[in-house]
């Protein structure tokens, strides 16, 4: 919360500039500017990532906000240039919590997310159907393979960026990507989208 120093009343502007309030405001303003920049640059990435990590669409925006709240609290610890890496790790944890909550809601008898489990009114639209198939194919992969697949195939990162973000040797990232591709293809085959079929 902003504060002011009553002792600065009637004093010069220079004196006011030396008050604790002013001294505190400047770093805060810098942090605000930085976190605003981080949000604007990475918001869509975090949102998409959460969806693909299994967060239901109805919760994706709240989960995105949670990721950036964590970043806001720890902005001083985030090294310049490693923002995406920090957000990625945070998104993994938030998605894990969210999936657990969704499972608990399901176990406690609450209805599952309608938008994610039942055909929507637009289900007949071909693109919507394919979108669901993509999501189901992603969810059929173990998280460790899914993240590699998502970052490389959908986020269009290079293998070096993916391995760096995940803290894996490049060969491991590539090997996991190949395995994930096999699973993706297998998943599509099971859903009647074999090669050559539209």
């Amino acid at each position, binding site marked *: 919360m902003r504060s002011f120093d009553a002792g600065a009343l009637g004093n010069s502007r220079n004196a006011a500039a030396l008050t604790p309030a002013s001294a505190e405001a400047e770093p805060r303003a*810098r942090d605000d500017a930085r976190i605003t920049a981080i949000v604007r640059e990475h918001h869509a990435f975090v949102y*998409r990532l959460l969806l693909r990590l299994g967060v239901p669409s109805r919760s994706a925006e709240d989960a995105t906000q949670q990721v950036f709240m964590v970043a806001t609290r720890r902005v001083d610890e985030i090294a310049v240039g490693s923002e995406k890496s920090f957000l990625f790790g945070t998104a993994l944890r938030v998605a894990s919590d969210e999936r657990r909550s969704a499972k608990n809601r399901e176990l406690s008898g609450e209805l599952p997310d309608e938008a994610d489990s039942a055909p929507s009114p637009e289900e007949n639209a071909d693109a919507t159907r394919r*979108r669901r198939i993509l999501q189901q194919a992603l969810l059929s992969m173990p998280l460790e393979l899914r993240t590699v697949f998502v970052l490389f195939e959908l986020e269009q990162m290079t293998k070096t960026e993916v391995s760096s973000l995940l803290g894996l040797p490049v060969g491991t990232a590539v090997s996991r990507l190949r395995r994930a591709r096999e699973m993706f293809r297998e998943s599509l085959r099971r859903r009647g989208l074999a090669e050559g079929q539209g």
Partner: protein
Amino acid sequence: MEPDDDLQADWSASELSVLRTAELDVPPPGSVERTLTAIGVGATLGAGAGLGGASSLASVASVGRMAHASFWLKWLGAAAIGGGIASVVFLAKHQAAPLPPTPVASAPAVTHVPELPPKAPLPPPERPALAQPAAAPAHGVAAARADSAERADKPTDGKEALAAEIRIIDEARGRLRQGDAAGALEALRRYDQLVKRGGSMRAEATVVRIEALEASGDAAGAGALADRFLSKNPDSPYADYVKKIVAQAR
């Protein structure tokens, strides 16, 4: 030359059509502003910006702003009761004068990071046609049946088994990073027990085993395993990495 040419996938048309739909996953309109409001740096946005469809977290931030306003009201009340005219004058001046704009409000548009070199850019997806909300889906029952079949078809066991393999390998790699080669080898023994002679991630496990053997001082064992691995998998993505480990060991 593209940096990842060796990883270009020969996706079929139908596979591409599914992958393309990833481009439809965009945050809802106003989501960025609502996020900024929720984390407390969006207060300088235009009145009502992001609040129309604000989520619960954004509402928390609104409460925070209300608390800020009530702070000033309390001061005004205290000043009136106490008859502290000077205080009232100060507060009136303080309220009349807007707070100096923070850099947030005037922050320039964020400079985007350079675009990554496109790898086989995907053509634009077909946008799903908007259906009338009241219209019942023509194939709702069929779609629901298909959906149910798809869910039943999910290879949960296979997925879990694969996840278990990866967990053990990651544990082994983690122990190696901590300098615990014996612990890594022990984890890999559990891997062998889990998958017997098979295993979807066998190549990855073998590479970690080569590293662990080398790290434990068994250069001969590491070299022998590496030679076997390279003869069986000359085109493996690990081939160069394994050669490097062996070169270090010898």
